[in-house]
């Protein structure tokens, strides 16, 4: 019995580049929050919360787009989701203390 080798269809280049541009934009946004003059109305805790949320949003984009989690098995996505929630939640609680 022979098999016909078939190239798998691919995640689109546009999707990957779009994810990268999103990551750059989120990085610049978090940089603005992290800069000295950006405290403003949010206050220090608000700024720290925004920085942490943006960081974990970027982690999600990397996992979803670069690590190809949008096509991956449920157990892998669930494991990562657990990591996001646990780690981000713990850090935010500590930064709010």
């Amino acid at each position, binding site marked *: 019995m022979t098999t*016909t080798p*078939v*190239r798998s269809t691919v995640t689109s280049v546009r999707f*990957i580049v779009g994810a990268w541009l999103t990551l750059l934009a989120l990085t610049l946004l978090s*940089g603005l929050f*992290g*800069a000295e003059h950006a405290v403003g109305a949010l206050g220090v805790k608000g700024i*720290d919360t925004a920085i942490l949320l943006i*960081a974990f949003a970027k982690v999600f984009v990397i996992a979803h787009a670069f690590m190809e989690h949008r096509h991956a098995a449920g157990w892998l996505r669930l494991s*990562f989701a657990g990591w996001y929630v646990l780690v981000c939640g713990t850090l935010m609680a500590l930064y709010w203390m």
Partner: protein
Amino acid sequence: MGDTTFAPDSPNTTQPIAGRNGTPLERRMLKRGVPGEVGIWAFILTDMSVFAIYYIVVALSRSRQPEVFLHGRHLMSLPTGLLNTFFMLTASLFVALAVQYIRQGRNGTSQVLLVGAGLCGTGFVITKYFEWGAKLAAGYTPLSDNFFQLYFMLTGIHLLHVLVALVVLAYMSRKVTHIRQVPAASQMRFIENGASYWHMVDLIWLGLFALLYLAS
């Protein structure tokens, strides 16, 4: 449309990847559903958990000595952190694109992308060298205070990961030279493993960047 099929997990195959037209056995293997091998994901999740503990140590240490951490954070160079983040993200972009092009059999393009990723990774290492040099020249060492102890230790451990990732990249590039048109399942698994490791190194940096360079 746009579904990605990952390389099957069969240990002894040198057969080209079979897609939807493959045998029932191959179709079952393709249902593994993770890039690379399950083992690399066990490793990645473990390493991410270790770094999660490091992040929490930073946050706990900061809560006990907020003025030390604020002082340390003010001494960090945001432009340097942004540059290094750019290097990490762009290297990941190139690696992710390379994987797609390898699946399409466009090996020459994928090699260029892997070189690009290597250059970004090297840029990160060089920037880190100058960043550490500046800190040490200014008299800040891992023994200065808790902030700098964590800064040097965690960025140092991450730097080791980057150096390993550069070696992995070289092996991935070498693997691509052995591909004849369509990659065999074992070749694709190796490349997906390496790419996943690289993205993990990028991901870990994002946490360090937020905690050491941005948050107060």
